[in-house]
């Protein structure tokens, strides 16, 4: 068995044009895999309940897709720098609690708290780089910190979302449902920023080959701080979007997002190491998870006891399909 089974296939693209074409085709198919997974889930839903494929149906089914997509993008930034954020879920919960209390009652203080929390993320990036700490442990510790702060801000479930936020999240554009427009927008903006700008390339390079980047004169401290700050920023957006939908908060509201966001990045074609991530893939991965999580299961008449298992099974099936396709291509 090959030992590097979890690593990406390394392209041997110097072996003439035939090999290069095959490699390009494999890469293209690999890029299309997240979209294929989403299509698979959509087909299953359409087959089980054709009426769900409508403006109203999508609005309902993709209700929670926006915060999940934003949290997945947040996770994607740290993964691009070869780190992992195990605190994003409780952070989203903390942001939610602040949004439903301070941001409504005293907007200025609320905004300052949220900006401060992005600053904390930036500091964590600096700490992790300067002391060479494992991000898994630091963010594990931070997950307790955010949860504790969330309980202090909002001891009992409640609070209320600011009216402007409710208005944004219940926006009903003509023809295309809002969650789809929002997901497209998020994916395209981040894709442009991370994949098409020169500093975006540097950011991904900090995960791909940090040593080369340092020798070329770039500051790895700065890239790490920027990546963590971006994670904080999208975590804040995710928490706010979540409260805009649920209208009130609870200290535990975001706990599931840590694992969802990691699964979303991987479903979207991202790798844990090497700075290989895809913003559009991540958004598609998040949509797939959001759809597979409950609408599909409800239509399949799966009893509540087994819904969690069905979630796991869907994750496994999608990943198995991915392996089959990439194997055929090789």
């Amino acid at each position: 068995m090959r030992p590097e089974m979890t690593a990406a296939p390394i392209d041997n693209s110097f072996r003439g044009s035939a090999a290069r074409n095959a490699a390009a085709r494999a890469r293209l198919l690999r890029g299309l895999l997240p979209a294929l997974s989403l299509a698979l889930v959509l087909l299953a839903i359409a087959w089980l309940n054709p009426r769900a494929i409508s403006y109203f149906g999508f609005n309902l089914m993709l209700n929670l897709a926006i915060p999940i997509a934003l949290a997945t993008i947040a996770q994607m930034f740290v993964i691009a720098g070869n780190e992992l954020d195990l605190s994003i879920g409780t952070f989203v919960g903390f942001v939610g609690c602040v949004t439903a209390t301070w941001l409504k009652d005293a907007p200025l203080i609320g905004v300052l708290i949220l900006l401060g929390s992005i600053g904390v993320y930036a500091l964590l990036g600096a700490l992790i780089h300067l002391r060479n700490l494992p991000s898994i442990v630091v963010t594990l510790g931070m997950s307790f910190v955010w949860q504790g702060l969330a309980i202090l801000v909002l001891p009992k479930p409640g609070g209320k979302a600011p009216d402007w936020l409710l208005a944004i999240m219940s926006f009903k554009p003509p023809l295309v449902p809002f969650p789809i427009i929002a997901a497209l927008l998020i994916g395209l903006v981040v894709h442009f920023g991370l994949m098409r700008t020169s500093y975006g390339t540097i950011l991904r390079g900090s995960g791909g080959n940090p040593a080369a980047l340092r020798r070329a004169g770039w500051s790895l401290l700065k890239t790490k701080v920027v990546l963590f700050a971006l994670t904080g920023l999208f975590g804040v957006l995710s928490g706010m979007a979540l409260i805009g939908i649920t209208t009130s908060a609870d200290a535990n509201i975001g706990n599931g997002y840590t694992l969802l966001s990691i699964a979303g990045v991987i479903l979207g074609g991202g790798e844990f190491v090497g700075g290989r991530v895809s913003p559009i893939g991540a958004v598609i991965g998040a949509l797939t998870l959001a759809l597979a999580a409950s609408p599909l299961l409800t239509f399949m008449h799966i009893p509540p006891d087994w819904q969690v298992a069905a979630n796991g099974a869907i994750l496994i099936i999608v990943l198995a399909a991915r392996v089959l396709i990439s194997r055929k291509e090789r």
Partner: protein
Amino acid sequence: MVSLKMLLTKPWIWSFVGAFLVWLATITFTGGYGAGGMVTAALSLAVFTVIVGVGQMFVITLGPGNVDLSLPANIGLASAVAMKVMGGSDSMIVVGLLAALACGAAIGAINYLLIWALRIPPIIATLSASFIIQSVDISFGRGLQIKPPPGFADFTNWQILGVPVLAMLTVLFTIGAAIALRRMIYGRSVLAIGQNIRAAWLAGVNVGRVRFLTYTLSGALGGIDGALLAGYFRGANVDIGNEYLLASIAVVVIGGTSVAGGKANVPGVWGAALFLVLLLTMLNTFGVSAGVRLLLTGLIIVGVITAAGGEKAVR
């Protein structure tokens, strides 16, 4: 003095120092009251974290990305299986323990099967598996209110001169784990794979088999932990293992094992487990609210890891 100096260079010593300081702070607060009882209670509770911590340590040592996220679900299911098989009768204790062990080992083996067959990162594989195990547990353990056999419950709470017997047995087990890691081919292979999987493969280490064994071992330890927890807390419960996801990873890393793999530390797991349990006891003694307790726990974990520092980059 030389031996003291050598002791101070060991990475695991700091977790014990931390545990001792926390204990000292607490008994200063209570004016010396309950100092011994606190150690006994800490030992009893730390045992459960140490058992899964050792399993998690072997998995993490396999290298970056290797982690077993299915432990909480595994513990929950095994606790239900153990209680059902024992059925409250003393004569079935050993059979029940073996059933829990087999259940855990099977989960570990399935975990590796997913990683190997689907070539997916272990984090995602064990996560997907844990979803399925959770459902099996909910469905299987529904309304299950079987008390552990009296003999088993007494055994898990048995103390000799204030030292829990379970803790003594666990010390023996961890010594065994340390020997396996340092002196046995299996342990050396785990370390070799963690340091450089390709080099280990080229050197003739059967990478697939060692990884399979390691995930199975972690699963089996989760299973036995579930049975013991059910005995100690007098009953199985779907949520009984929930706190052991974070705890198992935290004790491994605070204990000085490298998350980059290839470097394991058995004594540190004990020190870190005692530290975490005593920390919670201290915050409870101080009477702080749940929010402050979580906040301080988090800050202290981040503080400890920052003070201990990461290892220098190899490249």
